[in-house]
């Protein structure tokens, strides 16, 4: 390694000379590697303008990471504003967009915070560690709000199921998510696993976390109060995840090979578990004024955001940062993304107690600076000032782009390629074969191989977990108050129509929450798209945001926060636009949750909602015809609301024994799953006016199937009738086969084999 111990300044300076603020002011003409650090020419010029001089090496490091797409949202900011502008009024929203995570009131003095983030690229490079550190990062966001993390979820997307590289990526990702989450003691209560060739080379590894706190424990990332101390605690800072900073740290550009600093870090879940415990103990003793996790952009981000959200003044002595590698330069320390670190702002008289708690948990904690009266973020190294900036310009006043967007030319042709025109099964035998093929297809098959690698029991509050429609947790043991969470996304629908696709994702997650008996309250999202520099992708992105914001308005569920992941593409080929939507719900007593298993013979099966011929983007069109075209199912948000109301009321009044929402795969997929879960068969009758194929495979939105005990039938149908929700009796729980009268009968054992063998077979 050829780095100089004290850290070289900018190239051209003598290696031993530190690039101080003073030096920068005196040497305006030195060439700086802004391009290598990912800044555009005009962005670099803007930095010089903001500072009134050239930046020091350290300042350049900070601006370059903080003004990156990942940290500044420069391509998406303009559009994300809609989530705030169109937000429906909600009394439940305690903290909205802009903080580490939004906070929602669930009653009885409890508040919940939840968020989903992407860790796509690292997980492709090093599946285990990439996914593991993704979980670590999202959990720190939750702790930073003052909440105890109570569960994680993991929406995942991989390339084709039978592609050899999927065999490398998937097991590693799953083991990493499990390895980290299990070791933290967080139950995994849901997620998604989707295969599609479009994700080859760009797997989507999204990780979500939920935390619970009391109202008065909410903490914001804010450094206020001159004299308050800034404490860095957790892991030592190392040379991992530095990326471009090594360019700054090297003596010349030439010896800065890009591979020198790996972009992937190794996670230490044990360290993170200690961080959780000591942070919560510090919160409980009211020792903390402000709190920030260290994620992307490490200390650059934490210091500038804490300062910027406060009065703006902060002085940091970088020499006090505990290092794992004593040769790190100040630029590298500022940019390092070493995992498992947090930053707290603490009043001086409480510092001793804070450090004591860290010591109890064997967590290294160091005062690295203090809040100052001024409005400058100043950073010192070896007694010299190397950063002197207005923190806001780093953290919040980065560039904003209005990137061009244009509906792609191919969109019309894609939509014209109508899936409803695809040939249907010619006879009952073919229909039966199609059902088996559907149930056994990788996207529809059982995900138990994956989900059994996740602890869903730990913490002792898991009421529902996979494979239920949503995960559900008990929050209060006395009252039974609980929360539910579901995540959904459908890249195929969104490709066909981004506006509708995003709404369908929201509608499905919303429906999944209501299906279990919980009332949907709030939304978080993770927007995975290709390159924003491609106007077609940018159009998909803007349409999806518009669709989501509009739908949230109708459903009354505000977006509380989210995450944007762009540049998911290989060469010219972008992934399907994939907004992943998480919906959080509340249930006043988890004892009345609705499970999805058909557990008792004789229960009547009702199909709620209306079924039309809608095959565009469907699983059937993919599995049977390898086809993607036409329009996605229509969205009727008022209907979704009504359906949710009915499902919640039926759960509250004990009218239904089971419910399962209908989504990809249609009715037959849902019935098969509920039958297999309960170990009971079902006899179904195709309703008049529908073809068997449409009845079984159509993916019309706003539907669910419920099992109603005979004793409740009149009351239940009466309620549906009174509220105007179509409810058709389609069969009964019975026997040990799924039988569609006049068409076919499929023994449960045959269905089970088809459903359960696929994923293990692919990954063995």
């Amino acid at each position, binding site marked *: 390694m050829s780095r100089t111990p004290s850290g070289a300044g900018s190239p051209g300076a003598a290696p031993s000379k530190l690039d101080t603020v003073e030096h920068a002011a005196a040497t305006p003409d030195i060439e700086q590697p802004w391009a290598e650090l990912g800044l555009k020419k005009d962005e670099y010029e803007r930095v010089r303008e903001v500072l009134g001089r050239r930046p020091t090496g350290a300042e350049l490091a900070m601006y370059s990471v903080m003004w990156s797409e990942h940290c500044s949202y420069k391509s998406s900011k303009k559009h994300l504003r809609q989530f705030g502008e169109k937000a429906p009024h909600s009394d439940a929203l305690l903290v909205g967009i802009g903080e580490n995570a939004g906070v929602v009131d669930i009653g009885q003095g409890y508040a919940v915070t939840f968020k989903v983030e992407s860790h796509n690229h690292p997980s492709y490079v090093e599946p285990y560690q990439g996914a593991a550190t993704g979980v670590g990062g999202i959990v720190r966001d939750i702790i930073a709000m003052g909440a105890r993390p109570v569960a994680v979820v993991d929406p995942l997307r991989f390339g084709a199921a039978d592609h050899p590289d999927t065999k490398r990526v998937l097991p590693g990702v799953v*083991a990493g998510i*499990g*390895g980290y989450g*299990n*070791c*933290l*003691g967080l139950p995994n209560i849901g997620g998604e696993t989707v295969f599609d060739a479009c994700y080859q080379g760009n797997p989507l590894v999204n990780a979500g976390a939920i935390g619970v706190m009391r109202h008065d424990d909410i903490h914001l990332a804010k450094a206020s109060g001159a004299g308050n101390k800034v404490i860095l605690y957790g892991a030592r800072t190392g040379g991992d995840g530095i990326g471009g900073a090594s360019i700054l740290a090297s003596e010349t550009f030439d010896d800065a090979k890009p591979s020198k600093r790996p972009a992937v870090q190794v996670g*230490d*879940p*044990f*360290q993170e*578990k*200690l961080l959780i415990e000591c942070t919560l103990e510090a919160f409980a003793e009211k020792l903390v004024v402000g709190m920030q996790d260290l994620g992307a952009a490490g200390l650059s981000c934490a210091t500038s955001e804490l300062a910027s959200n406060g009065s703006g003044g902060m002085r940091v002595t970088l020499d006090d940062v505990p290092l794992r590698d004593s040769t790190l330069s100040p630029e590298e320390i500022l940019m390092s993304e070493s995992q498992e670190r947090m930053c707290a702002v603490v009043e001086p008289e409480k510092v001793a107690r804070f450090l004591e708690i860290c010591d109890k*948990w*064997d967590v290294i904690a160091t005062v690295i600076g203090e809040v100052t009266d001024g409005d400058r973020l100043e950073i010192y190294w070896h007694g010299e000032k190397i950063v002197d900036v207005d923190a806001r310009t780093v953290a919040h006043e980065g560039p904003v782009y209005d990137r061009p967007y244009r509906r792609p030319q191919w969109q019309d042709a894609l939509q014209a390629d109508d899936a409803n025109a695809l040939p249907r099964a010619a006879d009952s035998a073919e229909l039966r074969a199609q059902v088996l093929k559907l149930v056994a297809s990788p996207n529809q098959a*059982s995900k*138990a*191989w994956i989900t*059994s*690698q*996740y*602890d*869903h*029991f*730990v*913490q*002792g*509050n*898991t*009421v529902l977990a996979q494979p239920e429609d949503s995960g559900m947790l*008990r929050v209060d043991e006395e009252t*039974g108050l609980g929360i539910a969470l579901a995540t959904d996304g459908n890249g195929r629908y969104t490709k066909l129509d981004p506006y509708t696709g995003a709404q369908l994702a929201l509608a499905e997650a919303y429906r999944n929450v209501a299906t279990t008996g919980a009332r949907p309250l709030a939304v978080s999202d993770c927007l995975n798209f290709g390159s924003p520099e491609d106007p077609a992708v940018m159009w998909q992105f803007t349409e999806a945001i518009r669709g989501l914001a509009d739908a949230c308005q109708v459903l009354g569920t505000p977006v509380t926060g989210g995450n944007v992941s762009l540049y998911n593409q290989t060469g010219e080929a972008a992934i399907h636009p994939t907004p992943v939507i998480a919906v959080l719900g509340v249930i006043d007593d*988890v*004892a009345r949750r609705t499970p999805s298993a058909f557990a008792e013979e004789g229960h009547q099966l009702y199909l709620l909602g209306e079924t039309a011929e809608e095959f565009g983007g469907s699983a059937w069109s993919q599995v049977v015809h390898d086809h993607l075209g036409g329009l996605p199912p229509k969205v009727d948000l008022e209907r979704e609301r009504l359906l949710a109301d009915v499902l919640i009321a039926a759960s509250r009044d004990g009218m239904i024994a089971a419910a399962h929402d209908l989504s990809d795969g249609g009715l037959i997929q849902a019935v098969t799953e509920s039958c297999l879960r309960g170990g009971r068969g079902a006899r179904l009758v195709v309703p008049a006016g529908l073809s068997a194929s449409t009845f079984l495979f159509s993916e019309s939105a706003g539907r669910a199937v419920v099992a109603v005990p005979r004793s409740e039938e009149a009351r239940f149908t009466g309620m549906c009738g009174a509220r105007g929700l179509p409810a058709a009796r389609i069969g009964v729980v019975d026997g040990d086969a799924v039988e569609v009268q006049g068409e076919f009968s499929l023994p449960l054992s045959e269905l089970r084999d088809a459903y*359960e*063998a696929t*994923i*293990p*077979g692919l990954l*063995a």
Partner: protein
Amino acid sequence: MTVRPSATATDGSAGRPNVRIGVVTFPGSLDDRDTQRAIRLAGAEPVPLWHKDRSLGQVDAVVLPGGFSYGDYLRAGSISRFSPVMGTVVERAREGMPVLGICNGFQVLTEAHLLPGAMLGNEHLHFICRDQKLRVENAGTAWTTDYEAGQEIHIPLKNMDGRYVADERTLDMLEAEGRVVFRYAGDDDSTGYPPTEQASPNGSLRRIAGICNAEGNVVGLMPHPEHATDPLVGTGRTDGLPFFTSILRTFVEGAAA
């Protein structure tokens, strides 16, 4: 075995001895709170114990809970074994105090040589979490009297390092002395992992899920009884509750005698 109830206090209402069961928290323990809850549900008093303390307070028995103490780095249980609290636990266990090790706690007990054998990574190399069928082989230990020998129960299994290994001589001895307390029963598995050589969910030799020491006061098992004590959460069953009522009864009857 001899039970020496230090259970002196009585809870006024029932006049019943107040049985105090310590639950050790190591850094990285995860199921410690759940174990405390299960103890409370069974009617005893859970007492949190901290790994850095040598003292066990006034407890009558100790549970080493599940989790990933010290991240399970090096080997599961290998670092916790050297904690101050374990010095006392080992001492008191040798004097006859009942000790139960669940999952990570079982791993700590083997590393501390309170129980023979060792725990290795699951044979299929995956973490496994599922509802597991077990057969109770020995209903005579301090922790299993409320079961019947031969009874089949379902409790959650969730671990990475659950493969019980010992040499043949040790295994034969365990069998001969009735010290195999639980065995994995059936392989009603829907996860699709290839069946292990040993027909157990993790490759444990002779399908051993739990064992005890010669005196029967120290029991270790991989599955988690504390997660099968409340019908609303976990597996929806309460098959794990008898662990905690057994130990309660051990003391209540010991005190009455």
